[in-house]
């Protein structure tokens, strides 16, 4: 009876044609769906967290089927570190921007003095901006945790 690890060593990930062909077609659609879920958080179930995890799952799928090195080629480790700090940074930046323009922290209506859209509309737009930040942050953290766990710290050879 072969073990899971023995099989994976011999049957290398980049030689499994059916999986590779199917996943190569699927990944752009999964990413598009993830972006759709983030952007339509106002009008349907969804929002930043759900869309961010779907986006991360698309790249985890790439790492599973094509190997960890292929996903490193797609989003390198330094780019992932930058993206992961970008999420909380966007949130705090918008909060401080609201203070600079006269309101409280995360008081989106105070941004009305830059571009006059209306107090209610700015609240809707402010929620949209922070949801974008949340989505990007969650995507990169899920990818990072998966890479570290599946390679046991070495970032060399995944599942």
């Amino acid at each position, binding site marked *: *009876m*072969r*073990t*899971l*690890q023995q099989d994976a060593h011999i049957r290398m990930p980049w030689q499994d044609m059916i999986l590779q062909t199917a996943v190569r077609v699927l990944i752009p659609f999964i990413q598009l769906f993830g972006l759709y*879920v983030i952007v339509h*958080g*106002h*009008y*349907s*179930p*969804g*929002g930043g*967290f*759900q869309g961010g*995890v*779907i986006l*991360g*799952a698309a790249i*985890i799928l790439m790492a599973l089927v094509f190997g960890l090195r292929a996903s490193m080629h797609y989003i390198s480790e330094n780019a992932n570190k930058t993206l*992961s*700090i970008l*999420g*909380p940074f966007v*949130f*705090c930046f918008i*909060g401080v921007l609201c203070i600079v323009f006269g309101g409280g922290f*995360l008081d*989106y209506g105070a941004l009305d003095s830059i571009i006059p859209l209306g107090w*209610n*509309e700015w*609240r*809707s737009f*402010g*929620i949209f901006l*922070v*949801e974008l*930040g*949340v989505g990007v*942050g*969650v995507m*990169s*953290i*899920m990818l*990072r*945790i*998966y890479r*570290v*766990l*599946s*390679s*046991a*710290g*070495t970032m060399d050879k995944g*599942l």
Partner: protein
Amino acid sequence: MIWQLDLFLLTLVVICGFGTVSTRGLLSSTIIFSAYSFLMCLLYAEMGAVDVAFTEAVVGAGVSTIFFIAALFRSTRRSPLIIRGVDDPHHFKDQGLKALPLALAFVTGALLFYGMADFPDWGDPGSQPNTHVSAYYIENAVRETHVPNLVTAVLGDYRGYDTMFELVVIYCAGVSVVSILKQEGDNP
């Protein structure tokens, strides 16, 4: 909120929960746990919590299962295909302690039963959690924020601090995982 569907799903959930705990193989336990997460997602959707059901489906049945399988793959090296967890009940050194966990679970369960008797009836619109602040959100959130999805409006605007610190918690988890498993001499 159809109580027949609810009873059916709850029965399946309890069966999956018992299956996860009592299965010998670790990989089988993880897959049964993924089925448990999917059934939980159906329960949340049936009770009207569509956002929570979406999150549970993606996070609980998707990414969490992948994390478990990745960790199992990296840890049990010289074992057969059915990754077997060593769960021998005779490992307890002191035989008198064998029944203690079950007794503890029963005692805690009995205390919780006693506490739950005070809860409001299921689905009561006039109960305490359903009246004070959430009534304000339901009546005024769309008028003030122009966002039809009440959960997104409360999450992003009225309770924005919670969301910001939740994001910081996720970031700290990512940093912790990297720093726990980093090899010596790697580039940070």
